[in-house]
């Protein structure tokens, strides 16, 4: 009962929020004496101050947000000899967290603290069952620690390597490959093996794991370098581990052991202080962990901490909650029933670009305003608003601990990508970048992965990747590619399918034949108007798929099926389609429909072409009006489209093309959950996280062959076939 008292106090506080007081200028400093064997600082400070009525937590290590989960992480024991110390720290910190709230709640005259505390307290209440469980288990944990552990037991589960260069001695690093860097130390040249996971997690793509950043960190910033293996942790050691004994896990383990051996050998050979090192080898690893391996002897603490961390990281937000997603990629709020994800984006124009960062932010705001109402959850009740803020806006709006990592996106000259039609990627936007494309890239930053087929349909058949020598059909061929309109596949298709589209088109001023057709009462005029509003098959199939088609003229006298439709599909099958397309043109001074026989046949094995034809036929059968004006017309300038009816018809001498949404949301259910739950392996995003592990690996790799999910890509997204 005694152990419940703090929680009762917290509960009492929650329900008596009339006012709070925390004295201005009060400063609490807590030192944790973590007895690291390595070179980590001896003291860890968490400073709590009250500034302008706000409670500010300042953990001094890696700017880690103040969360109970983070406090728990600093107390993992290394060996039996250290267990008492770690347990003491643990208890200290636990009591600290609780007392902090007790103090804030009992001293309640400052109303400015209310909002700040309210959020924390609500979160603490939800977590209290874990505290409670721990406190209940504390004595059991002590007796559960098992037999004495040998000192320096090799790690069974390394997940992260940290290298810290103090800068006290000269060192330089040559080019690094995936796992090797040539390093020159004062003691002579060395090879350092570095490990990094595949870039399967796009939310971390701006993080440390690139050669350049590795070198920057070590050489210039003298910062810690972190190389993580989220895959290993997720698949081999987590509660949802598939099997620690699988060939994949065993293989990785062998590599880790080798790497660690080499690192240790290197470090031992160097004069003291050349490199500060810390090898954090713990499943939930972070820099605050006690620095030697866990073994089964401390499994109950480990499990407990893991459970707490996972629950706090992965739990869904209740209305009023907020959190920085693990890794800090974005900040999530749920101010009401809806969600809000904030990205911290710094747009930096390159030399010669006139557009400023502010102008790009304004463009992005306009774009997101057209899209945000259509990021809907599968239940249709909640919505996700994606906010793209500048670092200055984030600094203005955020509290410490809720600041997402800054992502820099260069604004590149229009000529940057040549004339390829490419407008941007996650790190580079052209000033003219289109809205669906920008959304696609922002969703990468929110953790979604590519779902398009990288088969390079535009390449010569059988063309090989210039480096790997593998066919483009193979490269990234393990990726699951949906037929559902996904914004991570065909961004325009998804953007247009999820939103109601209305386009008001008008004839060019000098085009009398166009006007005569629009206003004509003859049946032929009515048909041509239908054809005008129809999507062209080239537009639907895509440029490179059409290169596998032939187009021939159909005589006017030939029998005509479905004469009121712009496209008559005659036959469609696996990788083939035959259709008649009624193209609009001129015959003398009259507008005329030209009948074209279109036959498409994909080369055998060209999966991208086969898929594009299949999805194209699905879209054509819906008979959705074109999202663009027919080339013989132009967009009516200066008109308010909302004043026109939601129907495809001629109004005021203009052709209105309207299509209602054909899919319920711009992001599929599992994509939505991935954003609001993060990368948690069992965090509620269905199979998405597992499917995404296969997004960037070759089709012929062992992993793809043995572990690729037996799911369709649509199932990965959580949508029906």
């Amino acid at each position, binding site marked *: 009962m005694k152990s419940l008292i703090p929680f009762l106090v917290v509960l009492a506080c929650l329900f008596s929020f009339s006012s709070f007081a925390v004295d201005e200028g009060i400063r609490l400093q807590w030192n944790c004496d973590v007895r690291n064997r390595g070179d980590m600082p001896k003291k860890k400070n968490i400073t709590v101050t009250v500034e302008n009525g706000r409670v500010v937590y300042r953990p001094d290590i890696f700017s880690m947000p103040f969360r109970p989960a983070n406090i728990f992480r600093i107390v993992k024991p290394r060996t039996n000899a250290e267990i008492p110390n770690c347990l003491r720290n643990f208890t200290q910190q636990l009591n600290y967290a609780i007392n902090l709230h007790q103090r804030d709640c009992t001293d309640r005259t400052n109303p400015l603290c209310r909002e700040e505390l309210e959020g924390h307290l609500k979160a603490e209440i939800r977590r209290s069952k874990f505290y409670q469980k721990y406190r209940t288990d504390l004595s059991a944990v002590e007796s559960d620690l098992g037999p004495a552990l040998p000192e320096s037991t090799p790690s069974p589960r390394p997940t992260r390597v940290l290298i810290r260069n103090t800068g006290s001695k000269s060192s330089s690093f040559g080019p690094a490959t995936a796992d090797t860097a040539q390093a020159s130390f004062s003691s002579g040249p060395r090879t350092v093996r570095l490990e990094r996971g595949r870039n399967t997690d796009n939310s971390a793509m701006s993080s440390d794991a690139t050669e350049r950043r590795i070198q920057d960190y070590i050489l210039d910033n003298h910062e810690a370098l972190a190389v993580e293996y989220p895959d290993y942790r997720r698949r081999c050691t987590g509660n949802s581990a598939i099997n620690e004994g699988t060939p994949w896990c065993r293989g990785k383990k062998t590599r880790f052991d080798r790497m660690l051996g080499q690192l240790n050998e290197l470090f031992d050979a160097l004069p003291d202080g050349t490199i500060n090192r810390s090898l954090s080898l713990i499943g939930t690893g972070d820099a605050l962990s006690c620095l030697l391996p866990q073994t089964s002897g401390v499994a109950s603490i480990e499990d407990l901490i893991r459970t707490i961390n996972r629950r706090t990281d992965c739990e869904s937000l209740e209305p009023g909650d907020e959190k920085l997603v693990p890794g800090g990629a974005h900040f999530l709020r749920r101010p009401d029933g809806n969600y809000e994800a904030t990205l911290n984006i710094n747009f930096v124009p390159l030399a010669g670009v006139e557009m400023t960062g502010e102008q790009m932010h304004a463009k992005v705001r306009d774009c997101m305003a057209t899209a945000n109402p259509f990021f809907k959850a599968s239940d249709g009740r909640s919505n996700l608003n994606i906010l793209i803020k500048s670092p200055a806006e984030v600094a203005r709006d955020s509290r410490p601990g809720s600041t997402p990592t800054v992502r820099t996106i260069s604004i590149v000259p229009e000529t940057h990508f040549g004339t390829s039609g490419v407008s941007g990627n996650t790190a580079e936007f052209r000033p003219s970048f289109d809205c669906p494309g920008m959304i696609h890239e922002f969703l990468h930053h929110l953790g979604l992965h590519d779902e398009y087929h990288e088969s390079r349909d535009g390449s010569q*058949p059988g063309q090989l990747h210039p480096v790997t020598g593998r066919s483009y059909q193979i490269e990234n061929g393990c990726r699951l590619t949906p037929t559902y309109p996904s914004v991570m596949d065909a961004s325009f298709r998804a953007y247009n399918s999820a939103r109601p589209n209305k386009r008001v088109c008008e004839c060019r001023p000098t085009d009398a034949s166009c006007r005569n057709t629009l206003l004509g009462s003859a049946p032929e005029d009515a048909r041509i108007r239908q054809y005008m509003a129809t999507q062209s098959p080239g537009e639907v199939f895509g440029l490179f798929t059409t290169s596998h088609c032939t187009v021939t003229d159909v005589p006017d006298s030939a029998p005509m099926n479905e004469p009121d439709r712009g496209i008559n599909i005659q036959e469609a099958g696996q990788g083939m389609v035959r259709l008649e397309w009624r193209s609009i043109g001129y015959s003398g001074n009259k507008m005329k429909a030209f009948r074209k026989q279109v036959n498409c046949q994909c080369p055998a094995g060209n999966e991208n072409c086969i898929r594009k034809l299949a999805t194209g036929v699905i879209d054509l059968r819906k008979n959705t009006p074109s999202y663009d004006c027919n080339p013989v017309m132009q967009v009516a300038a200066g008109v308010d489209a909302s004043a026109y009816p939601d129907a495809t018809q001629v109004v005021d001498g203009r052709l209105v093309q309207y299509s209602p949404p054909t899919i319920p949301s711009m992001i599929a259910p599992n994509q939505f959950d991935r954003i609001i739950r993060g990368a948690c392996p069992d965090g509620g995003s269905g199979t998405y996280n597992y499917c995404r592990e296969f997004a960037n690996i070759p089709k012929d790799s062992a992993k793809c062959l043995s572990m690729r999910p037996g799911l369709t890509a649509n199932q990965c997204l959580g949508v029906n076939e």
Partner: protein
Amino acid sequence: MNTLFILLFLSLSAHSSILQKVRSTPEASESQAFFVEKDSAHYQKNTNLFDQPRRDFAFGTFVLKNRNSSYASIQAHLKALGEQFRNSDKFLKTKGMSFNELSGEVRHLTVFVIDGFTVKPDSKYFGELDKLFAQLQTLEWKLRDGYSFSKDFLSVEKVEKEKVLVKETFTESFFCQKGMCAYRGYGPIYRN
């Protein structure tokens, strides 16, 4: 087939040089490759992206009609560079690496591939290869097998063994979008 052929060719003909300029985007792999041998040369292109000094609208395999003195100099230069890359690769292999592994990811970049070795834009050799590539383009090439578009893009000729086999109507509104076209497996073809 291009690159398959390139690799096959490379293995059979150690003394020839192959210089390819390639860019992969999510949509396509754009490539032009020169095959430089002692007594002959040919050139394959599926895009006019890299055309210099102006865009041309013929695609397929071209043969060199006239080997002048600059050809010999280019040939020697390419051979020397290829040798240099091969030696670097040999050395790196003794360290458990390879030249191309060290080059790293090339996705969505314009790169040169010389005798199978990839050179990225941040390499000091990129500019040198770019000059060589431009010099090769200025030589006198003739379409042997492929397609050649009319200036107005209303028709396209199919060429086989340097002879026009058939002239076809080209439906631009179907095969082209936003100034880019694709036809019979060739593309992107840039109109401007």
